[in-house]
């Protein structure tokens, strides 16, 4: 009985918190000052067509570094909790249709992932999305081939190397130019080209590799392979 009352009270409290947000809602007409600065700076100073990318990589670069750290800690946590239990794998082998299709598809999925994170400053893609697509390619390999073995040392090597290079580029920006993770250590190039926008594509590709290897590690651990 008392449980139901507590649940009802918390739901009513939640509705009371959000009610003013609905009743006093006014649609904004213009960008605020900070957003105006970000849009102008991203287009005219950094030469990045996708403003969200430049906010993530440059203006809020420290947040992204912290986020990659949180993802790394989650990977370590999952690996620590589920270590050494390889008997839970799906044993039944896949059908021939799935095996043949996936052997063709995996390579194309990898190419799509690389396209997404190298074009992060031009298209809606980026490091996180590309990393997830690469991890899904490994997942398809894991699902279609029961005997597939992931080489963990290569995965850990890619992950630590990309993390190290990410921090290294940040420190290089601190030494050579104005601040930590500044993309101006490379020339800006033409607006809209693949090799433009300074170090933003390099940083986002490193983030993509790191996220991809971390998510692959989470999936492999949860999928039951040791």
């Amino acid at each position: 009985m008392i449980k139901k009352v507590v649940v009802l009270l918390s739901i009513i409290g939640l509705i009371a918190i959000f009610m003013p947000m609905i009743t006093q809602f006014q649609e904004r007409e213009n960008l605020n000052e900070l957003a105006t600065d970000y849009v102008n700076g991203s287009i005219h100073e950094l030469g990045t067509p996708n403003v969200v990318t430049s906010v993530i990589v440059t203006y809020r670069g420290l947040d992204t570094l912290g986020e990659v750290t949180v993802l790394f800690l989650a990977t370590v946590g999952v690996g620590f909790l589920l270590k050494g239990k390889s008997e839970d794998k799906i044993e039944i082998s896949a059908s021939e249709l799935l095996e043949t299709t996936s052997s063709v598809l995996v390579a194309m999925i990898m190419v799509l992932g690389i396209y997404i994170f190298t074009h992060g400053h031009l298209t809606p893609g980026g490091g996180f999305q590309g990393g997830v697509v690469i991890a899904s390619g490994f997942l398809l390999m894991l699902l279609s081939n029961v005997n597939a073995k992931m080489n963990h040392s290569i995965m850990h090597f890619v992950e630590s190397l990309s993390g190290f290079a990410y921090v290294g580029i940040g420190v290089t920006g601190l030494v050579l130019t104005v601040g930590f993770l500044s993309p101006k250590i490379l020339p800006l190039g033409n607006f809209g080209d693949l090799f433009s926008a300074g170090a933003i594509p390099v940083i986002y590709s490193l983030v993509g590799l790191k996220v991809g290897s971390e998510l692959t590690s989470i999936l492999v651990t949860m999928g039951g392979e040791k």
Partner: protein
Amino acid sequence: MIPGIIIGLGVIMIAAAFAAIYFKSLLASIIAAGVISLLASVIYLILGSPDVAMTEASIGSGLTTVIFLFALHRVRKGKSDD
């Protein structure tokens, strides 16, 4: 046309949320939760943030469903109730 799409998808999403709570089978709950993420990605696209739409389409619908399924497989090993 866009308000119609938002209202239609919103009704389906709320129905899927209730279904995810009240389904007896855990697999059906997971599929319903996947439907919420899939349709949320269209909502983000209408709201003008394609970056978020792409992330939600890849993470919310793909990887979260798969991780839930892996956990369910480990928990339900040896049982075959639906």
